[in-house]
Structure formats: C-alpha cells, structure tokens
C-alpha cells in the first residue's frame, strides 16, 4: 500500500512533444531552427495564457491548444482582428485628445 510502490502512470507529455502534436494536427512547419524555437516559445507562452484563462473562467468554456497557438497576441490581432474597426470607444479617444490639448 505504499505510495512509492505504486506505478506513477504515464508520464506527462513534454512541451516539445505537445508542440509536435500541434504541428501535426494543424499541419505547421517552420522555415528554420530559429523560427521553430521562436514558435515553440510562443506556443509555451500561449499554453500558460490558456491555463490562466481556464482558471479564471466563470462559464463553461475550455481553453487550450488551438490553430492559433503558435501566434503572438499581436500576430493574431493583425491576422484575424478587423483593424479598420478595432478601436477603443471614441469617447475615450476624444477625452484623451482633449486632455492633451489642455496640457498643451
């Protein structure tokens, strides 16, 4: 009954293995080793972000590996966000502008 005697079970996948599975699932390849390393870094960062979102989620949503997991937040915004309409509320922009004028 000792815990030490118990089979530890399957070992968790290493991040590189998870990334490899991501590449296979979403058919991703990178032009060189430097780019691969950069995308792996971004992927790991995104996994942490997804985990944080999951912990703070108030609904039933699940966050994790998606087709966009190798993109930075900025790249995702540039590729999929509608830059022409993306903006803070105009009233905020106007207020900032007004405050700057006041300062001047």
């Amino acid at each position, binding site marked *: 009954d000792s815990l030490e005697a118990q089979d530890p079970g399957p070992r968790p996948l290493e991040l590189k293995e998870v990334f490899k599975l991501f590449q296979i699932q979403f058919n991703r390849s990178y032009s060189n080793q430097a780019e691969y390393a950069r995308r792996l870094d971004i992927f790991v960062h*995104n996994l942490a*972000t*997804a985990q944080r*979102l999951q912990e*703070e*989620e*108030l*609904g*039933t*949503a*699940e*966050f*994790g*590996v*998606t*087709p*966009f*997991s190798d*993109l930075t*937040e900025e790249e*995702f*915004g540039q*590729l*999929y*966000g*509608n*830059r*022409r*309409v*993306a*903006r*803070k*509320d105009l009233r*905020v922009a106007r207020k900032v502008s007004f405050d700057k004028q006041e300062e001047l």
Partner: protein
Amino acid sequence: MSQSCDWRKAHIISPVKNQGNCRCCWAIAAAGNIEAMWNIRYKVSVTLSVQELLDCARCEDGCAGGYIWDAFITVLNYSGLASEKDYPFRGHANIHKCLASNYRKVAWIYDYIMLPRDEQGIARYVATQGPITVIINSKILQHYKKGIIKGTSSKCDPWFVDHYVLLVGYGRSKAEEEKWTETDLSHSNRPPRHSIPYWILKNSWGANWGEEGYFRLHRGSNTCGITKYPITARVDNSAKQQPVSCPP
C-alpha cells in the same frame, strides 16, 4: 419570447466559411446574415459571393478589414449579390476589378438597421426575425476550444471590438455541461450555479475551429462587447415584418 432559439436547426444557415488570411469577417458575416434572412423569408437556400463584397466595396482592399454597413451598402449599390458558385472566394481582394455586373443576382436587400443595444431586445429580434450580425472583441477566441465564455471585462474588453460574426441563436446550458458537481460545491465557497444563458455565434475560421465553427458567449453581461453594434439587413420591404418562429 421562447427560452431558446437555434436557427441552425431550421437548416437556413449556410456552411461555416474560412476567411483564411483575408480579414473579411465583415463581408462573411454580412453575406451570412442575408443568406439566412433570404432563406427564412423566401424559403430559398442561397450561398452568396463574399468575393463580390471584397472586390466591389467602397473602401479599398476588403481583406484589410471593413465595416458591416459597407457590405450592405455594396449590396444596395449593386442591386444584390451573385452566388458564391458564380463569383467564388479567392482569399484576396481584386481592387478596381469588381465583376458584379457579370453575374446574375440571387439575393438582394431593401435596407439594413441597427437594433437596440440590449440583450433582451436582441434575443427578441433573433427569435422572431432571424440571425443578425454583431461585432465583438476576438482576443479571447485565440485560445477557445469549446463551451460558454463568461470572461470578465479585463479578459475581454467590451469597448475594444474587432471581429464581426453572425448571431444565430441563444439558449441556456444544461446541467451536464456544468463543470461543478454537488460535491465540488459543498467543498468550496462558490455559490450554486444555475444554468448559464448563452448566445450562439457563427465564426468564419472554418468548421474545424471551436464548436464546429461556432462558439458561445455568456448572455446578459455584454460579454466581449456583443451589444456594441447589432446590425441586420432586411430582405422584405413590408413596413411591419411578419414574425417567424425559431426552432427552440
């Protein structure tokens, strides 16, 4: 107003599209809105040309983003839209090469309207008229897999909206979808959770993303700014539109 509504069950929603590297969510959402409204009103299934909206829109390069009203104004200016089959999607805009006059129009609109910015009103309109377009903050969707998103405004700023999608229905989560069991609740300080009200939204990132191309947002808390610009085309010129029934 019914407790739930899902226009997908009426088979009036076209297959999920994939915008690829072209930022044309505005054109896809507008086309999806007209397709659904046309099908509800005239019982004719059409798949409309997103490419026509990209090539013929007033603003240059439709793949650099756009406004939903520009899509509707383009449909009004060209007296309708061609079918996707005749004028297929290529994933990039051909500026100054609008081919609208080359193809027969398969659907058209009379006007477009902005709905009141309250979620009760939006639900009532969707239930009695059909799917509408909304714009939301898409940031959180980068990591979304499935389920109902109920993020705080710090996670999904309702003032920063950047992605048009089609709102096709609403409902409430069933008990089995809840993450917390009775045992969990008795051991935590979390209040007992009732079923979660949600919106059903059709995205344009392909059917392999999210819940077969769709996702759900919490209903009743302006999640991700969903009430910012609820807009729909009208395909009927009658002053008082006859209500239709959405499948629960």
